[in-house]
Structure formats: structure tokens, C-alpha cells
């Protein structure tokens, strides 16, 4: 089965929501325009292309929120979050208005494009913004689910839409889902790393938890599952900078001794092109790479 593209799903869901909600706006900056034709035709006042102007992109979305609209703001993650970070911090968070920021590309989609189009630091950066919710849907269905929830809801959200996908979809209800229950360590898969995690742990007696909701992270379920071990062993797998969520896990387990292995994208630039799969492997996030890390940590 060919999995549908989460980015196309983002466009389809947003187009449908624009029909349903007269207070919804879509602001974009050339990127993904090939998917927005219907939305532009049907809602020219609420679907605004600002051209290649990312600072403006984010502040226009924030300004529309100040005027009472619910804005969806989209471009490639690196330009949305890193280039226009102060607009996110001041235009949205400091003004105390909400919106939905949808960044595409993530860490690996544009592998052949090189570093300029990759944003493995987006989640860590947005983690500095008070009140920011972060979502990393792992399938097209989860992308649809996340968008419907956050567009209808309130607050400030980042939705990280990438083309790597998991086989199974889970409700994007904010909870860590117990995919597998074991007696040993607890492996937490965030976003589209679940298939590799399941493959890497197939012959181990571990628990596997999964969520598309990165912030706030469901530490209640985490502590409940990991707390079954006398000294909890937690392995965190996230497809952006390694350790981004380690502070949250460490804080949740601060009342007891525990061991934590935080896996993710390495900080140094790889300076290679190629395919997303090659980059996933280069950062040790494919099944063999994860297995090697688990073997070293768990013995």
C-alpha cells in the first residue's frame, strides 16, 4: 500500500476546514501552492500568499489572529521556524494570540537539497516559546486528525508535516499510546519513527509508547509504564535533535533513580545529499541503528 502524503493531506484538510469555518485563514509563502488552488479560488479573502517573505508570513498570520481570525501559517519548517523565529515569539506568543504553524520538510524530506532546507532544530527552538504545542503526525490520517483538533481548538500550535510515515495511525488525542507492553525498558517513539522502533525492539521484552503529541508530552502515561521497573530505563526516539525531549522525561522521573537514552538527529552537519532513508540511517534512526544503540544501553 502506498501511504498518502501527509503534506497533501494537510492541504486537503485545510481546504475542507476553510469551507467549514468562516473565521479560518490560510497564509502561505509560495511553498505548497500547487495544493492550494481550490482554497484560493473559493476563499480569496482568507487565503493569502505573501510571496517569498517569511517574516511577513508569520506576522500577517499573527495580525489576522489579532483581528479575530484563526490562522494556519505554512511554509518549509526551516524558513517558518528558524528564519522567522522572532515573529513566532513576538507576533504570536508575546501578543497572546493563537494560531497553527504548519512546517513541512522536517529533518529529512529534502535530503538531496542539503542543510538549508532541513530543520532538525525546529522542535528544540519552539520549545523555548511559552505555551507552544508541538505535533508530529506519523501518518496522513494523523495529520488530518491533528489539524482538525488544533484548528478547532485554541492556543498556539506547530504541526510538523513530513513525508516519513508509520504504518499504523493512532488518535492524536495528546496521549502516549501503549503500542506494546513489556517487562523491561520503556521506548518512547515520537512521530514517524515508530516502525523503526518496533522493528528494532521486536525480540526484546520492552514497552513501546507512541504519540504524535510532542508538547505537552504525556508524562503521566510515561511514568505509569516506566514506573513498573524498580529503576526505570527509558529510551527516547525523536526524529529531530537528540535530547530535545530529554529534559521533560528527566523532570517527570526526578523523584526516583532512572536511566535515560535520548536518540535523535546528531548536532553536527552530515554534509551529504542522497535520500531521506540514507539520512535516517546516517543518524542511527533506522532499525539497525536503533538496535545497536539499544544493545549498548540495555545490554
Amino acid at each position, binding site marked *: 500500500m502506498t501511504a498518502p502524503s501527509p503534506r497533501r493531506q494537510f492541504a486537503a484538510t485545510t481546504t475542507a476546514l476553510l469551507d467549514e469555518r468562516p*473565521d479560518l*485563514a490560510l*497564509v502561505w509563502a509560495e511553498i505548497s501552492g500547487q495544493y492550494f488552488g481550490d482554497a484560493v479560488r473559493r476563499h480569496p*479573502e*482568507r487565503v*493569502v500568499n*505573501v*510571496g517569498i*517573505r517569511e*517574516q*511577513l508570513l508569520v*506576522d*500577517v*498570520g*499573527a*495580525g*489576522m*489572529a*489579532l*483581528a*479575530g*481570525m484563526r*490562522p494556519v501559517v505554512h511554509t518549509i519548517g526551516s524558513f517558518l521556524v528558524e528564519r522567522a523565529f*522572532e*515573529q513566532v515569539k*513576538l*507576533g504570536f506568543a*508575546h*501578543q*497572546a494570540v493563537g494560531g497553527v504553524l504548519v512546517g513541512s520538510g522536517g529533518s529529512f524530506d529534502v535530503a538531496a537539497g542539503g542543510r538549508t532546507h532541513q530543520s532538525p532544530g525546529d522542535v528544540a527552538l519552539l520549545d523555548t516559546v511559552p505555551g507552544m504545542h508541538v505535533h508530529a503526525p506519523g501518518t496522513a490520517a494523523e495529520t488530518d486528525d491533528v489539524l482538525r483538533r488544533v484548528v478547532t481548538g485554541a492556543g498556539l500550535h506547530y504541526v510538523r508535516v513530513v513525508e516519513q510515515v508509520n504504518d499504523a495511525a493512532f488518535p492524536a488525542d495528546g496521549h502516549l499510546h501503549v503500542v506494546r507492553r513489556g517487562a523491561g525498558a520503556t521506548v518512547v517513539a515520537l512521530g514517524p519513527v515508530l516502525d523503526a522502533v518496533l522493528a528494532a525492539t521486536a525480540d526484546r521484552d520492552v514497552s513501546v509508547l507512541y504519540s504524535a503529541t510532542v508538547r505537552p508530552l504525556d508524562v503521566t502515561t510515561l511514568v505509569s509504564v516506566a514506573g513498573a521497573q524498580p529503576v526505570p530505563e527509558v529510551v527516547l526516539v525523536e526524529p529531530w535533535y537528540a535530547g530535545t525531549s530529554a529534559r521533560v522525561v528527566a523532570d517527570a522521573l526526578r523523584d526516583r533513580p532512572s536511566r535515560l537514552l535520548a536518540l535523535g538527529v546528531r548536532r553536527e552537519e552530515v554534509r551529504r545529499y542522497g535520500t531521506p532513508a540514507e539520512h535516517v540511517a546516517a543518524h542511527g534512526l533506522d532499525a539497525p541503528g536503533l538496535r545497536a544503540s539499544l544493545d549498548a544501553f540495555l545490554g
Partner: protein
Amino acid sequence: MTTTATAPTRLGYDDLPRLISLMTGDEKHDAAATSTLDVLWVLYDQVLRVDPDHPDDPGRDRFLLSKGHGPMAYYATLVAQGFFPESWLADWASFDSRLGHHPDRVLVPGVEIGSGSLGHGLPLALGVTLGLRAGGNPARVVVLVGDAELDEGSNAEALAVAAALGTENLTVVVVDNGSASYGVPGRIAERFATEGWAVTTVDGRDHRALAPALSARSAARPSAVVAEVRS
């Protein structure tokens, strides 16, 4: 305007120096040294449709102070217009005060944006204008920027798009006190005109010139008022 038995005395332009001195602590402080003073006063006294008793009225005109530095004239004007009490001014910028060296919309009635970092007001104002337009709201949006603030590249992004989208309810007032490095005489007005804005240049101290310039709108294009302040 609502009439009540305890309606506060409405203050006027002549009260602004005294109000500003409550913040500066300098009784000899010359309010005219504040370049934005006359533009702000004319806007609130003659141009904007805002109601201090209903500062969140959805139909109100929006005024965005992009240049958040030196907000004394802004605070003094808001006090004079009745948005918050004069008593707030004395301890401004203290830990317990709602008034800082840059304004915060969450803390101060009538303040539309928190500003301080330059180059956000005009892009935000364009978004507000588009949001109001999409909702069928005819309110105006006026944003005050400084001439040096226009050096921020984010303004260039907004300037082009605002004109292209025909945002006739958007007005930018540039308080030009010649403070930009590498400034070129006349360039500000030319930039706006080149992008398709309706542009007027006036004496930023002359209330009789400011009022019509700030009130004017042009069909299907945004307006820019360059208010020159040289003294």
C-alpha cells in the same frame, strides 16, 4: 460618549507635558522633544474611532504603535483620552506597574500590540487589515513607524504586499525625525509611492496638516503619511 455622574474630566493637548513629566520626573522636560507627540494626539483626538469605555469593541479602529521606544507621549495621550488613570504614570517601569519602557497589549487598555522589537508593527498591521477585511469589518488600521525603523527588512516585505493586495483601510504614518543611518532625503515617500501607496508628506508638528492627511483614504490602495519632525 457615555455620561455618568463621575465622568472624569477630559484632558487636552495642553495637559500632555504635565503627564509626560510624571514619567520623566523632570518638570522642565519639553514634551515637544518627543517626535511622536503631535501625530499621536491628532490621531486620538480627531481621526481614530475608539472608545476608552469599550477598548475592545470589535468595530473600533486599530492603532498600532510599532516604534515602541520612548512611549511617554503614547501613555500620556491614552491617559488624556481616558483609557487608564493618570495615577498609573508615576511608578511607570517599576515591577508593579503595567507601563513599561515598551508597551504590552496584555497589560494596558487601548494598546493593540506589544512592541519594542522594531519591524513588526507594519507586518502585523497588514495582517490585522486583512483579517478585518476577510470578516467584513470596515475598521481602519493605522500603524506608526519611525524613519529608522524602516531600515528593518521586514517592512520591505510588508510594503510590497500591502499595496499589491489593495488594503485601502491600512494607513502607515512614518514619524521622520531624520534618525536613520544612511538616510536619503525624500526616499521614504518615494519608496511607498513606487510600491503603489498613496503618499502624503506633512509637517509632523502641524495639527491642521496632520488631521486631513491621517484621515484620508485612497480607493484600492493603502496610504502612507510621512510626518516630518525636525525640531
